[in-house]
């Protein structure tokens, strides 16, 4: 399954001038794109409606609450978006464990020793003492993004549900732990927000190579140039497999 997915290539588009079109490399399936879109929508709503309550004394806090239509509306928006995000998390886990047939251990999101090496090489590269590391399907930064979001989702969804149904939660856990949930929820949310706005947006929006944005989140495709530069190992792998299949086909004839 993994081999098949990694060599999905769109048909080259041939323009009117009879030149070769660009080759696009399939990076995300529509399913993954859709999950990301839902994530963006719910996350932004949750940040906007939640942060005024994390910093109630800030000057912008009442402004945002009034723009959202009052405190009751803010609460409704936050709860609705939160439930949608919990649904998304459940869908993600159910789909990628039970529906996706690819063996779980062979997935490329698991951290490996190469990632630790790449991490060190990246720092060396920043100080001009090494080459830029070559990445496979996912770089160590992307794996950190994914697992950071995974950890954040688990923490925020569990504590959020406790805060949404505090008296149901009290039947299961002591009252004091319900208060712990507020600390965990708000602090984790702040961490997630800062990480997304600073680090993730730098990687996919502000970084000079992709500015104003990498279109992979809309189309799911990467251009050949981007593929060579950002995922060199995967590119080489795809090319090797294409040659093999090509040779097999030709030998078969």
């Amino acid at each position, binding site marked *: 399954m993994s081999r098949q997915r990694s060599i999905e290539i769109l048909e080259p588009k041939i323009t009117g001038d009879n030149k070769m079109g660009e080759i696009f490399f399939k990076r995300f399936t529509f399913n993954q794109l859709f999950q990301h879109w839902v994530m963006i929508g719910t996350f932004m709503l949750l940040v906007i409606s939640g942060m005024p309550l994390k910093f*109630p004394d800030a000057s912008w806090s009442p402004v945002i609450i009034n723009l959202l239509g009052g405190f009751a509306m803010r609460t409704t928006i936050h709860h609705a978006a939160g439930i949608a995000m919990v649904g998304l998390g459940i869908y993600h886990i159910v789909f990628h464990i039970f529906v996706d047939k690819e063996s779980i251990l062979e997935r490329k999101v698991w951290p490996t020793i190469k990632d630790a090496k790449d991490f060190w090489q990246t720092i060396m590269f*920043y100080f001009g003492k090494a080459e830029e590391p070559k990445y496979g399907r996912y770089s160590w930064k992307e794996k950190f993004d994914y697992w*950071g979001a995974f950890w954040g989702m688990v923490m925020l969804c569990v504590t959020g549900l406790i805060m949404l149904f505090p008296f149901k939660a009290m039947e299961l856990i002591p009252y004091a732990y319900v208060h712990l949930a507020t600390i965990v929820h708000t602090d984790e949310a702040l961490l997630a927000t800062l990480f997304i706005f600073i680090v993730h947006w730098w990687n996919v929006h502000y970084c000079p190579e992709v500015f104003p944005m990498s279109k992979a989140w809309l189309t799911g495709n990467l251009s050949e140039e981007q593929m060579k530069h950002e995922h060199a190992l995967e590119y080489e792998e795809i090319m090797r497999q294409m040659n093999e299949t090509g040779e097999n086909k030709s030998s078969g004839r």
Partner: protein
Amino acid sequence: MIKKKRKYIKHQVKVDLSLEGKTGKAEDIYERYYRMTQLKKCYSLIRNKYLWILVIMLSVFTGVIAAQQDISCYHCHTKVVTEFRNNVHYDKGFNCADCHGGTDVSNASVVSYSVMSGNFIGRPNRENITDICSKCHEAETKDYKTSIHWDAIKQGHPDAATCTDCHGVHEIRAIKDPNSSSNHQNSPATCAKCHSNKEMMSAWYYGIKADRFDTYKESFHWRALDKGYALVATCADCHENHKTKSHTDPTSSTFPENLPNTCGKANCHAGVNFDAKVATGLVHDKESLHTGELVFNKTGLSPQMKEYFFGPFDLAYWIAIFFKILTTGVIGFFTGMVILDFFSRLKIKRRF
């Protein structure tokens, strides 16, 4: 010409015409007499006794009206009486004498000594204020006398809250009035007048905390109230406005075992199954953690409470610390990476 002069003579006093030619011309003399008579008319107005009677009657009349509006007190106690005009009792026809004693008959003179006579008490003692209010508000006073505030007054701490501290001294507004200090929404600010005052709190007895409003501010109740959502609990909803008691008092609404009834009031979290687990919560003490210090003084606690506070509350402290380190670490590190990334790209561009 003579005819014209006779016109004057008609309604003037006699003019001695023999003087003509000796003291001056006849016209000048007539002229002088004419002016004199006009002046006399004016003087007669002042001498008019009917006019004076009218003036006296008018002043008496205004005095009677003034007496009804406490004008007599108003001469000196202008500010107080102005405040009293906003009082709900003023609308119902009460006047100064109903609380301060003395007669309510006033003559509106500058010093209304007749008001300050009889059973006039002047400024009541703080211990006596309940006696004045209890004349009408019997049930409320009875409730108040079970409170910890009244205990403190009895024990010789007259600074403890009495009726006027929450309801206002002269400007007692109706409870539903949004400007009333005892209105639901204004309850936190009213209680904070004393309970955020460290000197006042330490004067009462050692160990009472002055951060009650600050810790309430961390709760969702306050955050919603502060942003205009009024259907939440404020001080008086949990601590009982008149029957305020210590949370260590078994009859208190905030005693751990009574919390299920307090939180489960009809308009609050009704229909929720509370059990003993709820009872272990002390709402105020958790959140001072956000300021980074463990506020709760664990000395002198019952073993049961001690077990409770050494558990999750220390955990909360460490969780807060953990997230501080995690957030600062992760965001700081990755922001550094972003900056390094940016500069490395600049270098590459310069090379080529």
